[in-house]
């Protein structure tokens, strides 16, 4: 009885987070002020974090919140506060491509969604919980090269960021 209730609650939570995430995404498209868009995105991200948690990949859920919501989004919010956003893009928030883009996006969604729908009937969801131990072993033994390459990418990003800031200085120095 309790098991069934938990299962049911699990599914209900998943649906709830999914709806939240979708609602946030839709809100991002229509809201005028960038700050509100940022808030909608944070909502979506937290909902996704919840979904990850419900799927059992808790550490990814944790990083989702830590990296996206705290680091990335704080950065963006900070910039929004820094800049004067009340310009042309504020009064006319949409481009002239609203209808075509919506049509194309819908086509994209319908086609791929149809394919997913059609092809993923038989696969059973895994039951075993996703352990951080297994992940850590795989990450540092099988995928160490990718890990190192990513570190190179990070270094490149740091250098690039410094160069961009320097450019900024030169233009106004």
């Amino acid at each position, binding site marked *: 009885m309790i098991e069934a209730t938990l299962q049911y609650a699990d599914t209900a939570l*998943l649906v709830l987070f999914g709806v939240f995430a979708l609602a946030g995404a839709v809100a*991002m498209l229509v809201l005028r002020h960038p700050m509100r868009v940022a808030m909608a995105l944070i909502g979506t991200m937290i909902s*996704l974090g919840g979904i990850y948690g419900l799927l059992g*990949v808790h550490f990814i859920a944790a990083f989702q919140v830590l990296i996206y919501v705290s680091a990335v989004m704080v950065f963006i919010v900070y910039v929004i506060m820094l800049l004067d956003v009340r310009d042309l893009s504020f009064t006319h928030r949409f481009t002239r*491509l609203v209808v075509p*883009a919506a049509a194309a996006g819908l086509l994209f969604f319908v086609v791929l969604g149809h394919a*997913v729908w059609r092809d*993923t009937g038989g696969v059973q969801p895994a039951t075993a919980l996703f352990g951080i131990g297994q992940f850590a072993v795989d990450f540092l033994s099988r995928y160490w090269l990718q890990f190192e390459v990513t570190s190179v990418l990070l270094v490149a990003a740091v250098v690039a960021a410094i160069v961009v800031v320097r450019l900024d200085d030169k233009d106004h120095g």
Partner: protein
Amino acid sequence: MDKLSALLVLALALFALGFVGVIIRRNVLVMLMCMELMLNAANLALVTLARQTDTTAGAVLVFLAFVVAAAEIAIAIPLVLLLVRRRRTLDAGAYAELKG
């Protein structure tokens, strides 16, 4: 309809919405955020598929995608600042120097 397929469709929807958002919104910052949304959708799809096939590869990719997202935003934000200082606008339509 099983749970994981539904999550895949959700990821698809988020990705499409993000893409459409990048196209239809004028504000550069909003465009950036829509791109973050697309990245999140991709992450969701990866996690879902990792669960579906019961492997760690998808999770590893998501982990790396986090790093890439952090790097991306670290460069993108200074670029936006640079652009705004030059032209005093966040309207991406104003920047048409790539014209062929």
